[in-house]
């Protein structure tokens, strides 16, 4: 019998954030276990309550980021569990896998309706690493188990990707907003399509996209890299900057939870039935 909800973290060849992701899950009061991509039987038999696809470079990003992992047999299981309503989170490369699996936005079952294309920024190309600010859409806060505690504030998180630009076919532009979960904004919460506020040229300033029911979330920023307050750089302004300063002056800095924790704590809350 499970003492706490079990969150499965799936490791593909080339994943590199599985351990910190699993630690973030455990530090939020849930249980976590890392399953390799070829352990689909073990994954099936352990009956996890939720799934996380962590960041990294699955299959070395060969062909296209996330494209090969999306075809793996273990994703059949994740796909069917998501269809049954279990929470699934894809972070960065995990988000790319969810997109290439057709799990977000999921308007038509299994159809690939969006892409995480190469960053498009005037005068530069390639890999981008830094801190961004985002806010959660109202609908996502209401229906997404990963976002229930995010509130209306601005959340600073790190990004690190070369292919993070959400794009949709022109015929789907009208309904892209309905799948919006997280949007890039400045430190005051004001959206802009300009770099560096929108760091990659993403359509509608999208940092995260969910499926129709909100249980599947694909996000490019890394919440597990901002789980603890000490991971926040000193220049971060706003509410989280103030909290950081407060934790430093009160001596609670080492144990204080950072902005990335709200995603995992939201899931724990969801399992406790508080959301």
């Amino acid at each position, binding site marked *: 019998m499970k003492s706490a909800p079990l969150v499965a973290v799936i490791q593909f060849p080339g994943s590199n954030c599985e351990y910190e992701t699993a630690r973030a899950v455990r530090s939020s009061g849930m249980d976590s276990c890392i399953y390799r991509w070829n352990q689909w039987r073990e994954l099936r038999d352990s009956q996890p309550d939720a799934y996380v696809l962590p960041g990294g470079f699955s299959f070395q990003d060969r062909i296209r980021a996330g494209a090969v992992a999306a075809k793996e047999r273990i994703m059949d299981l994740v796909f069917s569990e998501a269809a049954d309503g279990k929470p699934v989170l894809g972070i960065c490369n995990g988000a790319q896998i969810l997109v*290439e699996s057709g799990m977000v936005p999921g308007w038509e079952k299994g159809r690939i309706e969006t892409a995480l294309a190469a960053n498009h920024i005037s005068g530069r190309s390639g890999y981008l690493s830094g801190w961004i600010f985002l806010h959660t859409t109202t609908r996502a806060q209401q229906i997404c188990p990963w976002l229930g505690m995010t509130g209306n504030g601005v959340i600073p998180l790190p990004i690190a990707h070369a292919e993070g630009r959400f794009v949709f076919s022109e015929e789907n532009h009208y309904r892209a907003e309905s799948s919006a979960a997280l949007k890039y904004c400045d430190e005051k919460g004001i959206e802009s399509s300009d770099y560096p506020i929108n760091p990659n040229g993403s359509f509608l300033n999208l940092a995260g996209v969910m499926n129709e029911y909100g249980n599947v979330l694909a996000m490019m920023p890394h919440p597990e890299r901002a789980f603890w307050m000490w991971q926040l750089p000193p220049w971060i302004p706003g509410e989280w900057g103030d909290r950081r300063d407060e934790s430093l002056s009160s001596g609670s800095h080492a144990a204080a939870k950072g902005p990335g924790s709200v995603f995992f704590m939201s899931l724990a809350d969801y399992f406790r039935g508080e959301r």
Partner: protein
Amino acid sequence: MKDVSIIVSLKSPDPAAMTAMSTFRRIYPAKCPDNLLRYDHWRFMNPGQGTETVSGIVSRYHDIVNPNKQTWSYIDEFNKPSDLSDDGMVWIDVLVTDRIDSVSENWTAILRRSSCEIDGVLCSVLWRFGFASGISCDDARNRVLDLTASTYRDHGLLANPVSQKIDLPAPLRI
């Protein structure tokens, strides 16, 4: 003046092509090609002195062709690599190009800044599917389209049509 295109390949076996082949074998065994090659494809638009301008660019910028690990050749207007010999196979070429591409834009800017006589650069990936004889060109083209366009989770691999353009030049029997 016309455009000049080159293809660039690794001297060692291409890991992306090997991964694509093994994925095809696993998920589409009936449609799998007998050979699959991958090249970087660079199209130089209206180079002032034609191939002379292009060879100057290639020898100057090792980000386009790194001579330590890559080889390159021109391809003719039918997209037929000029250095491939007749091997009795049916070869179908697919060109995959990002609909919006910072790399092409930035290389165009770099080359213009360096006073190259050129209108622009377009980077793509060229995949060459080889099928053993016995298959018609039409069948081969249909297979290649199925294998390339990733429209559903269980359909296609090499290009996501939401963000990438897929071009199939006329089939070649090399």
